[in-house]
């Protein structure tokens, strides 16, 4: 990562956008992890999701916070690849690994070993905006391989209205963010996923959101 460019990008572009144009309404900010290794698990509606979640951590923890993002999308050309890895600081994830020799989670596990805070979207795609899809189990594999990692669920609403999939025009709406209690690897994949899905659903049920269709 180019830390100087990254700081400049966040201070002059991302913070004004998330804090002034969008406006974040964060419930229980104190539950955000103070230090890594930690996983932030959130629902995915918009390209703004990762930037918004990173901005929750402020400048002090900025250098330790990185989003996990699809390699096939963000590394599809050199310029986007440079910007994604150097400025936004993504950890690329191969969504359809071929063969068994390479370890698709190696980058994530290594980052957790460096005590970083990673942002993961287990829905796998932005999908239909403002609709919660079922979580894929990759997050359980990560939690199992790094059991000391805390997993903090976060539910977001509003960014899918501001910049949904397939739209390039940004329209301001307030963004509601609900931070949940962290959990750890439970020893069983099914149990862990059930617990995580349960927490996400109860976070989603906290807010009342107007119709948007």
């Amino acid at each position, binding site marked *: 990562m180019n830390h100087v460019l990254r700081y400049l990008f966040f201070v002059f572009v991302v913070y004004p956008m998330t804090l002034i144009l969008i*406006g974040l*309404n964060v419930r229980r900010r104190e539950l955000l992890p103070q230090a890594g290794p930690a996983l932030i698990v959130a629902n995915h509606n918009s390209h703004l999701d990762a930037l918004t979640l990173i901005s929750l951590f402020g400048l002090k923890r900025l250098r330790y916070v990185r989003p996990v993002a699809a390699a096939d999308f963000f590394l599809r050309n050199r310029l986007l690849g440079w910007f994604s890895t150097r400025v936004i600081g993504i950890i690329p994830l191969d969504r359809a690994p071929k063969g068994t020799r390479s370890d698709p989670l190696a980058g994530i596990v290594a980052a957790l070993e460096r005590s970083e805070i990673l942002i993961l979207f287990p829905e796998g795609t932005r999908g239909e905006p403002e609709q919660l899809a079922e979580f894929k189990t990759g997050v359980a594999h990560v939690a199992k391989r790094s059991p000391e990692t805390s997993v903090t669920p976060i539910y977001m609403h*509003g960014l899918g*209205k501001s910049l*949904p999939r397939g*739209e390039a*025009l940004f*329209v*301001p*709406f*307030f963004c509601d963010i609900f931070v949940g209690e962290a959990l750890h690897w439970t020893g069983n994949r099914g149990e862990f996923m059930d617990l995580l899905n349960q927490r996400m659903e109860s976070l989603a049920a906290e807010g*009342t959101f*107007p*119709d*948007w*269709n």
Partner: protein
Amino acid sequence: MIRQLPTEVNWTLAGIFAVLVLSSVLLYCWRRLKPQADLAEMTARLRTWWVIAVLFSLAVAGSQAFAVAFFAFVSFLAFKEYLSLIPTRRADRRVLFWAYLAIPIQYYWIYSQWYGMFIIFIPVYMFLLLPTRAVLIGNTDGYIRAMGTVHWGLMTAVFSLSHAAYLLNLQPVESGRISPSWPSEHAIEEPGPGLLIMLVLLTQLNDVAQFAWGKSFGRTRVAPDVSPGKTVAGLVGGVATTVVLAMLIGPALTLMDWQRSLFAGLIIGLGGFAGDLSISALKRDLGVKDSGSILPGHGGILDRVDSLTYTAPMFFHFVHYFYF
């Protein structure tokens, strides 16, 4: 360029800060005497009042551009809060984008002091443009509701509130219907700040007076289905208090004589009451308690400026008719 404020305006601002200092001291003593009392809500509320008072004073005392930018930002926050609360159509994202663009344009008319455009831009041009944009997108399901809600929001959060900003820049004309009675020599060059402070101060005091009278007296509710706390005694007592305060403040702070000030007080009292109820009805319809959470201890922006959405245009046009 910084405004040279008339003496009476400086004293009024000093008075507002004196009240805030006194409140903070009292709250501090209360906390020391009764450590077990839960004062978190009140502390947050007072802290937010401090922020509002400082920003508002800077807007009044600073340059014209800063004041216009400040009110434009308040309108932006209020309009965004409104659009985030109400049901909107996914197809209307582009319509809402144009509606947002109306904010800088409306405040540009104020900055350039183009009264004619300021007064018709939203009620005429945006009123016609937004439905046209929506028709070009072509979704007719829920069309009437969508257009009605967007326009109501623009009128309330942008058009109405922008009158407060225009008040700051008014320059009296020789041919006014009444000749001004100036509170000081200096006020002749800067009549706006006194008028704006009178509007905002009386609107807030009217809220307090109506609340206090309603708590102390009265059983008959004015609008039981909209806001159960509002009583006839609260309304009458609140308006009477505001009228008396207006008669005291108006001649000392603005170009109005006591007769005009009396009517201005009546307008602010009744308008503030109606604006409060209007936003209450909106929240009740949507099933929310507060319009947002951006102002700790107060709720959202719309919760704070609810009365002002009525009093700002009503007070403005009252003053404008007689003096400008």
